[in-house]
């Protein structure tokens, strides 16, 4: 009996601290935007940049404050505040460069908060109307109200070619212009 306890203790002590828990569904990067906590899968985050040099472009939609140059790569900066019902902030404190199927965009956030391992138990699906014409931007929400951004939907919304813009006083899209 005593040996069993000691063996268990030895195994517990020798167990790597970084051993992945079996019930972890997703490791995410939690950040804050408009006093709301949002998260994206950390595997899809390329880099977090502090106070990036954002260059505004004329005729761009509201969710796009401009573009930035990341080591020679021009990325669109996307602020999802308008989709959350809040006005976009003029200054961009941080951007998280996210990737999806080889495409990249810089997601404007107020500040990174933490890395968090999300279990399946704490993830809740967001209920939407069946009649909704557009897919929801947030895939899940945790029990403590951290919303998980659905990156395919984000990239779909942030596609500047299909976004509504004002060109010569006419509401149109880049695809129609081209």
């Amino acid at each position, binding site marked *: 009996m005593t040996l069993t306890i000691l063996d268990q203790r030895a195994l517990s002590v020798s167990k790597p601290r*970084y051993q992945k828990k079996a019930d972890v569904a997703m490791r995410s*990067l939690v950040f804050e935007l408009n006093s709301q906590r949002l998260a994206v899968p*950390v595997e899809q985050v390329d*880099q*977090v940049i502090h106070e990036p040099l954002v260059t505004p472009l004329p005729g761009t939609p509201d969710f796009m404050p401009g573009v930035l140059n990341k080591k020679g790569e021009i990325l669109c900066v996307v602020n999802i505040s308008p989709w959350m019902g809040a006005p976009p902030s003029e200054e961009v404190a941080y951007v998280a460069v996210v990737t999806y199927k080889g495409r990249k965009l810089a997601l404007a956030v107020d500040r*990174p908060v933490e890395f968090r391992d999300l279990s399946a138990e704490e993830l809740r699906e967001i209920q939407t109307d069946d009649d909704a014409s557009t897919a929801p931007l947030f895939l899940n929400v945790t029990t403590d109200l951290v919303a998980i951004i659905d990156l395919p939907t984000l990239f779909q919304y942030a596609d500047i070619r299909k976004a509504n813009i004002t060109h010569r006083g006419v509401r149109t899209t880049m695809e129609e212009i081209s």
Partner: protein
Amino acid sequence: MIPFWFVCLVVIVVVTIATTVAYLVYRKGLVLNIYLSALPAMGLLVVIVWWSASNNDSIIRFAVTSVINTAIATGSIIFLNRLVIRQVQTHVQNLVASTAQLSALAQQSASTAAEQAATVSQVTSTVDEINQMSKVSTSSSQEVVQSAGTAVDQSAEGLETIINTRKIMDQIAEAGEIIDLVNELAEQSNLLAVNAGIEAAKAGDFGRGFAVVASEVRNLAEQSKEAVRQIRESIRRTEEGKRSIVDLEHLVKRLSDVLDENSEKARQISSASVQQSAGIKQINDAMKNVEQGGRDTASVAKQIEESVAALKDLGQSMTRMMGSKVTA
């Protein structure tokens, strides 16, 4: 020829009349010695007349003439004496009346002098008390001067301490710039830790150890930021304290100025108190002199009163001697 007996009779009658007049004059208080001295002369005259009558009639005429002349002379003397004595009596009465007034004045003067001496004595006593109070006041004012000087010194020391404290607070405020740099380093460390965690996550199981390191670095960065926040809060409170210190510095400066003024005024009060004490001492000495003068005046008035009484007695004695019923 006139018989001798007639001559003798005439002489006797004249002598009798003269004696009677003299007696009346004596009763009136006039000079007696004149008549007493005239009686032997008249007796001698009678002898001479008797001796002459037995020898010659011309002697009788001489005798009659002498008797008549003697009578006239005696009457004149009596009249003049009477006149002089009346005048002397008048003067003596005036003298007695004057002495009475003088006596009353002397008594009044003595009484006034006594009252004055009593009043001066009271004033002297009061001045003595004032003198004692002035000494106490002088001592107290000197203590106030010392206390004011001590307060001024302590105020200066307090002001110097406040200035040093303000300088230290200025240095602490300058440290805020360093804190900003530390905060910036913490931000950069946090960002590096975040990006390291992202890279570790991308590395899968191979990067989990690195993820732990990145997490610890990030924790350190967060702790640094928290420390910076606390230091900023302390600096902010220090800034508030600095404003209070600056206000206190101005207040102590004003207090120091007021203490300087008070110290100067206390010195002036002390100097004035010393002068006042000296003046009161002079007044005290003068009042003692006045008191002694009052006593001397009372003594002199007493002596005058006694002298006047003696003079009055003398006048009354003279009046009695002259047989007058003059009363004072």
